[in-house]
């Protein structure tokens, strides 16, 4: 399995990738500079450590982070193989540059004074949106995740858990350094919002529903879906577990509005139908965004 993505220089795809990285790192930097750093929130990661060091020794946040990222990436490459491409390096350098440049203008003052809760939420949202865009360009976030990857390799513990453990340690360092209980609490809010926002950016916010319909009137329902809603679907050949009767299960995806129309219709012809409705996180294919669009955009 190749972890490194190679793209030709100056193609459209290359251009889009780097646009994501530039916009993403800018958003990350705005989040740190205007919302997180001024309130001494320590949301894990290299930037969490750099924020603690900034308040203890007065070092610039971006430069400190860069000084951590370079050796970590080198150690990571030696221990884990060539996993981190040019894009990862470009990403963390730009983040550092943006953070220190914007800090120069902001003078470490928050955008909104006296409201750390609001700032922890929007700091998480901005950093999450930025990191999501960076991930979209297929770069990794580098930094403290490398530590988790190395520990995972030697201990065989699950990576997701280790990332949380590493971040929690950094949050606790913030608590010890600043001696204020509010720091870990606000930091966990930021971490939570960040995680949710990364997911939303990566898979999009989606109002489509996946439905499984078990009904005697599968033929009529099929006609409604195909002819009136102009959607596709798949019949699964099933057998009732209760009495071994043959059944057809309809598997289809519709949007919220179509779902209401379909429910109304099914209720008319077979009120005893069995429907399971789920949020689809992402639908790719005919009638929706195509897989091709997703990977190329």
């Amino acid at each position: 399995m190749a972890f490194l993505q190679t793209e030709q220089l100056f193609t459209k795809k290359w251009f889009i990738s780097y646009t994501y990285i530039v916009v993403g790192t800018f958003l990350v930097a705005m989040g740190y500079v205007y919302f997180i750093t001024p309130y001494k929130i320590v949301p894990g990661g290299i930037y969490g450590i750099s924020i603690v060091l900034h308040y203890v020794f007065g070092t610039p946040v971006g430069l400190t982070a860069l000084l951590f990222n370079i050796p970590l990436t080198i150690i990571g490459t030696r221990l884990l193989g060539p996993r981190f491409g040019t894009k990862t390096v470009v990403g963390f350098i730009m983040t550092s540059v943006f953070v220190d440049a914007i800090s120069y203008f902001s003078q470490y003052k928050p955008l909104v004074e006296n409201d750390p809760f609001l700032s922890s939420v929007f700091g998480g949202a901005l950093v999450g949106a930025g990191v999501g865009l960076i991930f979209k360009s297929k770069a990794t976030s580098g930094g403290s995740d490398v530590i988790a990857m190395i520990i995972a390799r030697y201990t065989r513990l699950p990576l997701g858990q280790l990332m949380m453990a590493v971040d929690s340690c950094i949050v606790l360092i913030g608590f010890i350094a600043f001696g204020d209980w509010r720091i870990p609490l606000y930091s966990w809010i930021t971490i939570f919002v960040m995680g949710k926002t990364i997911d939303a950016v990566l898979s999009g916010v989606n109002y489509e529903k996946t439905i499984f319909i078990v009904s005697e009137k599968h033929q009529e329902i099929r006609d409604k879906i195909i002819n009136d809603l102009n959607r596709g679907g798949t019949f699964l050949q099933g057998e009732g577990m209760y009495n071994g009767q043959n059944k057809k299960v309809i598997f289809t995806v519709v949007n919220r509005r179509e779902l209401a129309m379909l429910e109304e219709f099914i209720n008319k012809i077979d009120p005893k139908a069995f429907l399971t409705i789920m949020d689809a996180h992402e639908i790719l294919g005919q009638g929706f965004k195509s897989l091709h669009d997703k990977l190329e955009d």
Partner: protein
Amino acid sequence: MSFLQNEKIFSAKWIKSYLLIIIGSFILAAGFVFFINPYNIVPGGVYGIGIVVHHLTRETFSFWPTGIPVGLFGLVLNIPLTLIGIKVLGPRFGVKTVVGFVLTSVFMDFLTYFFGENDPLGLKDDVFMACVFGGVLIGFGLGLIFKSKATSGGSDIVAMIISKYTRLPLGQLMIYVDSVIVLFGLVVFKDWRIPLYSWIVIFVTGKVIDITMQGVSYDKMLLIISSEFELIRSKIINDLHRGGTFIPGKGMYNNTDKTIIFTVLNRREMAMLQEYIHQTDPHAFMTVVDANEILGEGFRSLSEKVEEL
């Protein structure tokens, strides 16, 4: 396809619809009066514009010393928007939509008159909390109005018209239209807090509308692949008293025939089943998906849902 719902006047369904609209409009108006308007938050929509205009017209009219009432201004915007909407989009907006927005405006201005507009609940040191609860009330009120099959009218009509000509998805356009109104608030009030608080209100409102309309479900859909499907079947049918469907499948690795069990359970039943499967076939493969909504035998029936209203 007809968008207008015809209901017989004074039938049970009609009375229920209008009760939902009255209660929904009242809760919606209360959300604005107690939590949003006093702190100049601008959460999109015609009332968002109303809040900005209210502030801009302070001391302009002698009979409205604090500015044009928010409800009245919302109404003044809603009437032409609805007329334009009907012209451009066809008769999509029924009597219920009109009753909904008229009632919301009336409730809003009456509540403001009785409770004042100067920090009625004393939350000025905790505007964040006001935003969250304002969003909850607005979302709940709108959810009830939507349940009666009325639309919210207002700025959504602008989004629908743009959507008709540009073919962009409606959900996205609604967010854009509201965001423009939020930024209008930033420009007028010149305070970064306004857009940030406003986005919190918009976010909470959206979530609460969804919860109000579809409920919170703790039911799980399970796809189980196990060689012991017969044993698992009898556990589900005989002990848990649930139904299910066998779906024949083929393993992708070596083409062996497999039987997939497709069933839906609540959280507790799922825990019991997992315990059982763990004992009978520890190698079973199970996919658990949160179901938003289950309709049919053993759960709420489809007719209950469609006719609920």
